[in-house]
């Protein structure tokens, strides 16, 4: 249970950008990060010298970290974060940047995530993803996260009666959402039949449960509301955020995530409830994890995820708009940028600049992050409630 948490009244989030999406690239991660940074400057009218805070997340920037990128890109920030938190890195970068701006440690924070992708990069990433994974997972079939999530999905299906059709509903709705998004890499129409017939990868995980690793970058800026207004930038208010790492460590198989610890604080901080959310962006490395987020963020009870998806339309124009630009499952997972794309999409929806279909009358949105399969479960969880600036 969290104590009283300082609000975010004076914080503005602006300039959502997506850049460089491609199935593979010979360019390095820094090229993608630089591309997103340039897009941020173009979107905001700012120049490099205006950026005095920087947060970087990338899996393929090595041997460099954020520090190396400051020299690469010719930046001299007075606040710097390197956030290796996978699918939670977007919300966590936002949390860190917001406090920096509130404290006066930075005035304009550029938050960036990006990665390259080529034949060897993904396999290299898996071989040495973590010490636990290198020694105790990879030697057992080298299936990558597909095996770990097969265990989680298998266990969840047996515990709660979820069917492949239930997971398919999530994937199919996201594909429909992505069909309107020009930079989404996977836009081939998907029916539930297509989902069910997709070839098995690691039972019960089949091909259309898996994200496609790709190259690309995403970004946004954090500044004060006063600064955003002075610049005339459409912006979004940050209402509340939470994060938690290594939640429920004694659960033998992951079936719930760290959001549960602080969910009450998340909604209390915004003085809103799940019913006030006009859309939800979950981290969709696999549909089972999106379903877990529906439960753990309070949209339905634990174990009721299957009934929830059967009872709702998850398209952008449906009864419960979810992953409204298609999520990673249809956009592609550009490494760490996958941890930003739900947040970037939320910023677009709340400033009426969607890349796909708009959510009608969007005033409040919830963004959730999850990631870092250090061994057998995702360790990082985070969530943020965002609100339209003029709501």
């Amino acid at each position, binding site marked *: 249970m969290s104590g009283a948490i300082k609000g975010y009244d004076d914080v503005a989030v602006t300039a959502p950008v997506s850049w460089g999406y491609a199935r593979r690239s010979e360019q390095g991660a820094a090229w993608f990060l630089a591309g997103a940074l340039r897009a941020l400057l173009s979107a905001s009218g700012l120049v490099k010298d205006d950026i005095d805070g920087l947060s970087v997340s990338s899996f393929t920037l090595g041997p460099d970290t954020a520090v190396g990128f400051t020299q690469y890109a010719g930046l001299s920030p007075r606040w710097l974060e390197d956030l290796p938190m996978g699918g939670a890195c977007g919300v966590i970068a936002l949390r860190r940047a917001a406090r920096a701006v509130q404290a006066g440690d930075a005035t304009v924070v550029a938050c960036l995530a990006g990665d390259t992708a080529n034949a060897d990069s*993904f*396999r290299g990433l*898996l*071989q*040495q993803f973590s*010490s*636990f994974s*290198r*020694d*105790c*997972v*990879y*030697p*057992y*079939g*080298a*299936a*990558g996260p*597909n*095996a770990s999530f*097969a*265990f*989680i999905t*298998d*266990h969840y299906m*047996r515990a709660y009666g979820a069917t492949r059709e239930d997971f398919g509903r999530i994937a199919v709705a996201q594909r429909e959402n992505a069909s309107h998004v020009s930079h989404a890499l996977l836009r081939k129409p998907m029916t539930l039949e297509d989902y069910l017939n997709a*070839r*098995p*990868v*690691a*039972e*019960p*995980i089949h091909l259309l449960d898996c994200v496609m690793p790709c190259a690309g970058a995403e970004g946004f800026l954090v500044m004060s509301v006063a600064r955003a207004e002075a610049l005339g930038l459409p912006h979004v208010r940050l209402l509340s955020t939470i994060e938690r790492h290594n939640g429920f*460590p*004694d659960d*033998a*198989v992951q079936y719930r995530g760290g959001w549960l610890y602080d969910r009450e604080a998340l909604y209390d901080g915004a003085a809103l409830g799940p019913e006030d959310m006009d859309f939800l962006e979950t981290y969709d490395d696999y549909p089972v994890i999106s379903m877990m987020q529906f439960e753990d963020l309070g949209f339905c009870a634990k174990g009721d995820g299957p009934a929830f998806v059967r009872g709702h339309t998850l398209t952008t124009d449906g009864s419960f708009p979810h992953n409204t630009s298609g999520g990673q499952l249809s956009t592609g997972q550009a490494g760490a940028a996958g941890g930003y794309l739900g947040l970037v999409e939320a910023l677009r929806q709340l400033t009426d600049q969607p890349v796909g279909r708009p959510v009608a009358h969007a005033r409040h949105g919830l963004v959730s992050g999850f990631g870092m399969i250090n*061994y*057998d479960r995702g360790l990082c969880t985070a969530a943020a409630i965002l609100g339209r600036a003029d709501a």
Partner: protein
Amino acid sequence: MSTPLPPATRGPLGRRFTEAVARGALELPVCDDCGRLQYPPREACGHCLSPSLTWQAMQLTGELLAATTLQHSNEAYFAERLPRRVGLVRIADGAQAVVHLVDDSKPGAVVGVRAMLDRSAQGVLVAHAVGGAMNARYRDEFTSPA
């Protein structure tokens, strides 16, 4: 062209595990202060933070918590040997192990977990039903040093 082998990269604790398997033992670190088994192995206790752990020989059996059949692998050695099963076994309180699952045990079954050497001479955990046997197709993949 070289023959593909299973992944051989291990850190110091993985090498310590293999060193015991090579002399015929399954050893894992146990906390000297609180008695907890550490898996994956580590040097400080993940429960009480004691810096003092001792590798102990042990027999492992436990519930098969989940299982999957791999139809894809990122390594050529395994890609040539598909489909194949891996499982997650509860080996102690707060410790579950990913294993090569070498029979058709279903989740809920009690399996025995052995330490064997794979074709890269690395120690790995191999499981099948207690009282059962390793499926013949895996016999040339794993050895048990006497």
